[in-house]
Structure formats: structure tokens, C-alpha cells
């Protein structure tokens, strides 16, 4: 388990083709099967242990312990300000961009601590994509938006390969049919729902292992929301997806596992069905039945 997919082959820089990455993952899998005790742990893509987050003097997360399974959707729910976004931003170290933020504890992806000195946050983020609450396409063409990641990471060797990546990403994001004839028009000219699918396409264009989504549907109407939920369900077979949502119904529809946060603490986590049918903690029950929040 010492081989860290982010660390050795990729940290050095740009030349990480998909080919290399598959090798790395295969290698990890091989070493795992050699050590039987680790199989159980490996079922979880992300493991958080005693995570505390401080913004200056203010503590935003308290001793969070959570396991996130791979190739499935995990939902974070909880009242506003309880630390869902904060925890999400720990996973791809986006909190590094906030000078006052301090993170302690361990967050492991495939058994390797993302906060380790040897991990380059820039490379980490290419492995852990993120979709924000408000669609934020770059002021570039649709094509350039999707090609952004592959370009900066040197994932395509030629124009044809780049075009293939863009096309397959847009197809996976369910946007291809709507934009195939206007790839070279500005991405900001799309509707809100289309923009959100565009940034999802942008995120999956670098074939990340994890996609973090922070309230991806809160700026969208019900139809666009339904499209994104469908999309999340399709992407589940290839990626580990973590989604923050304020909608209990959405959490119930799209996720397999749910984690309930309250006042900076992880109150309860478990299979979505169990959580919604018989929550163990009274606070969870109150929240999902709408008694507070």
C-alpha cells in the first residue's frame, strides 16, 4: 500500500497519460490482493480519521471519522453552516487556498494521506475533481472549457486526441447532443443547467477518481436538476462521487451512503436506505423529518 497513485508517477509533472495511470491503479490493486488484511479497507476510497478544521480561532469541524466507498455516491446532508463544504474542501485540499484555514487529522485516498508532504495539491486536485454550487465555466469556448484540464496536464498528445477527450467527456456529461454544433461558442452562453453539465464535463475530462459536488443543483430548476441526477447516477459506475445537498429527496434518490453533519460534527453515517428509514440519532431524525434545519 505504499504506492500512492498521486505520488510517484504523477507528482513530477505533466506527462501523465491515461496509460500510466491505469498501470498505477493496477499495481495498487495487485499489492492489495497480496495483503489480505487490507482488502476490507480498500473497499473504501476515502477514509477520514479525526479531522479537525479551524478557520483562524474558530473550529469548523470536530473529529470527523468517515469512510467513503468507491464507485458509488455518498451524500453529505445537514443544516447550513454545519461544515459540509468545509469537509468536502479538505478532500481535494481546496482549503489550502484559504490562508486562515488549518486542517488536522488524516484523510486518506486509497490509503495515502492527502496532507502528506510528498503530495502535491495540484496533482491531487487533478485526481479529485470538484463541481461548485454556482456553475463557473471559464470565459472561453465550450471546447476550451472541457479541454482545459487535459491541456494543463498534457493528457492529449495531438489535436485529434484532445478532440476525442472533449467529445467523450461531453457525452458522459450528457451535453454532447446539445452543444456539438456550437463547440466554439462561449461556455458562458449556455443555460444554467447546461453550464453545470459543462463544468461536470470539464471535471471528468481529466478522468479523476473522485468527483466532489457541492450543492450542484441548488441553482437549477427541477428539470435541469433531474438531468444532473440522472448524470450522477450514470457516472457512479466509473467514479467515486461525493455530493453535498440540502434536499433530503435528492440524497435519497442519488446516493447509496449518507452522512449527516451537525454543528461541525459527523452525527451519523450509513447506507442511505437505513438512514432515511430508521435513523439512529434523534438529531438525524429531526433533520430528515424537517423538524429543524
Amino acid at each position: 500500500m505504499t504506492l500512492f497513485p498521486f505520488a510517484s508517477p504523477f507528482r513530477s509533472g505533466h506527462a501523465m497519460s491515461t496509460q500510466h495511470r491505469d498501470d498505477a491503479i493496477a499495481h495498487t490493486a495487485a499489492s492489495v490482493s497480496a495483503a489480505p488484511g487490507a482488502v476490507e479497507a480498500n473497499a473504501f476510497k476515502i477514509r477520514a480519521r479525526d479531522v479537525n478544521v479551524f478557520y483562524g480561532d474558530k473550529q469548523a469541524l470536530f473529529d470527523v471519522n468517515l469512510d467513503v466507498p468507491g464507485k458509488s455516491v455518498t451524500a453529505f446532508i445537514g443544516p447550513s453552516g454545519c461544515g459540509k463544504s468545509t469537509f468536502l474542501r479538505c478532500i481535494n485540499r481546496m482549503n489550502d487556498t484559504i490562508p486562515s484555514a488549518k486542517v488536522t487529522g488524516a484523510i486518506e485516498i486509497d490509503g495515502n494521506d492527502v496532507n502528506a508532504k510528498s503530495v502535491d495539491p495540484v496533482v491531487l486536485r487533478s485526481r479529485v475533481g470538484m463541481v461548485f454550487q454556482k456553475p463557473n465555466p471559464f470565459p472561453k469556448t465550450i471546447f476550451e472549457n472541457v479541454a482545459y484540464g487535459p491541456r494543463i496536464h498534457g493528457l492529449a498528445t495531438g489535436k485529434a486526441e484532445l478532440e476525442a477527450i472533449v467529445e467523450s467527456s461531453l457525452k458522459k456529461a450528457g451535453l454532447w447532443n446539445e452543444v456539438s454544433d456550437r463547440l466554439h461558442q462561449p461556455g458562458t452562453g449556455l443555460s444554467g443547467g447546461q453550464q453545470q453539465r459543462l463544468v461536470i464535463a470539464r471535471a471528468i475530462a481529466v478522468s479523476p477518481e473522485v468527483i466532489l459536488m457541492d450543492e450542484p443543483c441548488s441553482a437549477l430548476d427541477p428539470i435541469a436538476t433531474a438531468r444532473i441526477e440522472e448524470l450522477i447516477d450514470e457516472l457512479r459506475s466509473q467514479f467515486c462521487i461525493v455530493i453535498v445537498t440540502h434536499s433530503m429527496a435528492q440524497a435519497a434518490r442519488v446516493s447509496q451512503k449518507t452522512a449527516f453533519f451537525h454543528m461541525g460534527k459527523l452525527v451519523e453515517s450509513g447506507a442511505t436506505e437505513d438512514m432515511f428509514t430508521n435513523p439512529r440519532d434523534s438529531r438525524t431524525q429531526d433533520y430528515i423529518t424537517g423538524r429543524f434545519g
Partner: protein
Amino acid sequence: MLTWLSLLFLALFSAAAFMAGRGRALKASGGSAARLHSLPNYYGSYAALWAGAPAALLLLLGMMFGGRVEDALLQRERPAAIAGMTVDRQDVFFSDVQAVASGQAASEVTYDGDERLAFDAKVAESRRISGIVRYSLLAAAGLVALGGLLLALPRIGTEFRARNRVEGWIAGVLIACSVAAVLTTLGIVLSLVWESWRFFQSVPVLDFLLGTEWSPQIAMRADQVAGAGAFGAVPLFVGTFLIMFIAMLVAAPVGLYSAIYLSEYANRGLRSTIKPLLEILAGVPTVVYGFFAALTVGPLFRAGFNAIGAQLVGGPLDGIGQYLMQVQNQMALVAGVVMGIMLIPFVSSLSDDIINAVPQSLRDGSYAMGATKSETIKRVVLPAALPGSWPPCCWPCRAPSARP
């Protein structure tokens, strides 16, 4: 002095009008502000504005144009004793009259006999006129102020929309200020057009635009001796554009990059010290830059180039060496570089504003894709900001006065 006193008095009157307007509104509503259409202070302001603003405007106009009126009245009739003088001398006569009347120093011309009598008569007349003009102005202002108050007060009642009226007054003041700015600009443009028109009456347009010689020493009056004059503007344009170009080469990259450093890389403490320092650079008077160019940069550059030239002379690059040996202090490079330094703070603070206007969500999006800081700046921040960040590069056109 009198006018300032009267302005002060007017301010007091206006304050009294405020109290009166407010009091009247409260009285009309039986003391409860809730029954009024607007807050009580709006009624006060309404009365104060009517009582103060028109009269103040009148006083200010009087301050600006009162002197003209006095002149015109004084010179309406010219005494027979000075009819023999040239027009220039008559002007001197009248300005002496006014100087003596107001107790200031007159010119050294002495007036005797009839001229002396006429002079003294005019001095007395000037004092009289000045008194009449001033006091009638004060009286008029007083009447206007009183009239304004009497106009405003009766209108005040519970239904009166004082809030909207005050809003109208504020809009009026704002419009007046912007009109003043526009009129000033218009005046400058018109006077330029007028002077150029007169200039092109004596110098053919084509000579000006295409001529390559500039030596404007010509005879302004018949008794002066001077050359024929040449007004070819090409050397001026070429020089200005060359200096502008060099200044841009210095200011655009340095300004833009320092703005990028300040807004994207520097931490808050550093930013809050460096930014004011840069802005101080913008406050240095252009003359100082001129001295800096003439006394420091010029000799430095010349010494440097001459030294390089001395090495090259006699070698394979002899021609360049000879040229560098002859370089002077006043070369365009010096002017351009110093002007570029002068423009750095402008370019920098403008670019800084533009870069800061790029939403943080775009940066987050780029970082979340695994882009580094400089990739984010180059590929997302600058393209988002750039349509606006070219103008700073054109700024050198605005400051051609810095040529040493």
C-alpha cells in the same frame, strides 16, 4: 470679505429655515412623525434648500461676475481728458483707477492736469459703483432667500412629498456638477479648435503635417527680428510616439506584472504596504521626474553607452561603437524610460482593479482542476480580465508633458 460674511449669514438663515420647515411639518401632523408622508428632516431640508440654495447661487455668480459688471459700468463713459490716449493706455488708466479705488498698488504712470482730475473723478465713481453693485447684490440675495422660504413653507403639510422633492434637488445638484465638468471640457476643446484655426490661417495644413523642420521662432510683432519660421510637426510626432513606445515597453509589463503579484501572490500584509508605496509614485510631480531624467538617468545612460562604445570602437562593430560614443543625455531612451516609470503606478493600479474584478469562483474552478497559480492567472484570470487591461497600455498618450 463681505460676500463670505453674507454666505455665512445665509447658512444660518438656511439652518433656521430647516428648523422652521421641520417644526411646521410636525405641527401639521400633531407631533407624530408617522402621519407625515416623509421623515420630518426631509421637510426641514426642503425648506432649507429653498431658502439657501438659490440665494447662494446668486451670491456665487455675483462673486464671479460682479467685477465685470463694475468694469462695464465704470468704462461706459470715457472722460474727454483721456480720449487722446491709445486704447492700451486707456486700459492702463482704468486698471489704475480700480487699483487706487480698492487700495492696491497702481502702475507707475503719473497723471497730471486734466488727466489727474479725470482720474480722481473716476476713482470716486468706481468706489460708488462698487458699493452699489455689492449692496444691490446682497439685497437681491436676501430677497431671494426670503422668497424661497416663503415659497417653501406654505407647501409643507402632512401630504406633501418632501422626500421626493429633496431627491429632485439632489439630482439637480449632481447634474449641475456634471454639466460643469462637461462645459469645461467643451471650453478647452473649443479654444483649441479656435487657436488651431487661427494657426492654420498663417501656416498651410500640409506644411504642418508633412514638414520635417520645427523652428517656431517667428516675429510676433512688426518690430521684432526673427527667422521665417518652420512648422513641420513630423519631428514632434515622431519624437512623441517614440517616447510613448519606449514608455509603454517599460510601464506595461512592469505595471501588469506587479499588479498580478500584488493581487494573486502577495499576502495581505505585504499587499497593504506595497500598494500605498506604488500609489505614492503616482503622486510624485512630473517636474521631479523631469529632474530625475535630466540629472540622474540621462548622465547614467550616457556614461554607460559611451563606455560600451569605447570598447567597440576599432573592432568589428566600429560603426555601432562610434554611434554609442556620441550618445547624449537627452536621448529618447531616457525620456521614455523615466516616463515609463512614471506610468507604472497607473498601469498597476488599473490592472489591479481589473484583476480583482475577476470572480473568485473562476479561480476556484481552475485550482480545482489542478492548475497551478500561474496557469490559473495566464489561462483564466488574464483572459477574463484582458479586454479591459489593454487601456493602461495606451495611457502614455495622456502624459506627454514629462519630456525633459
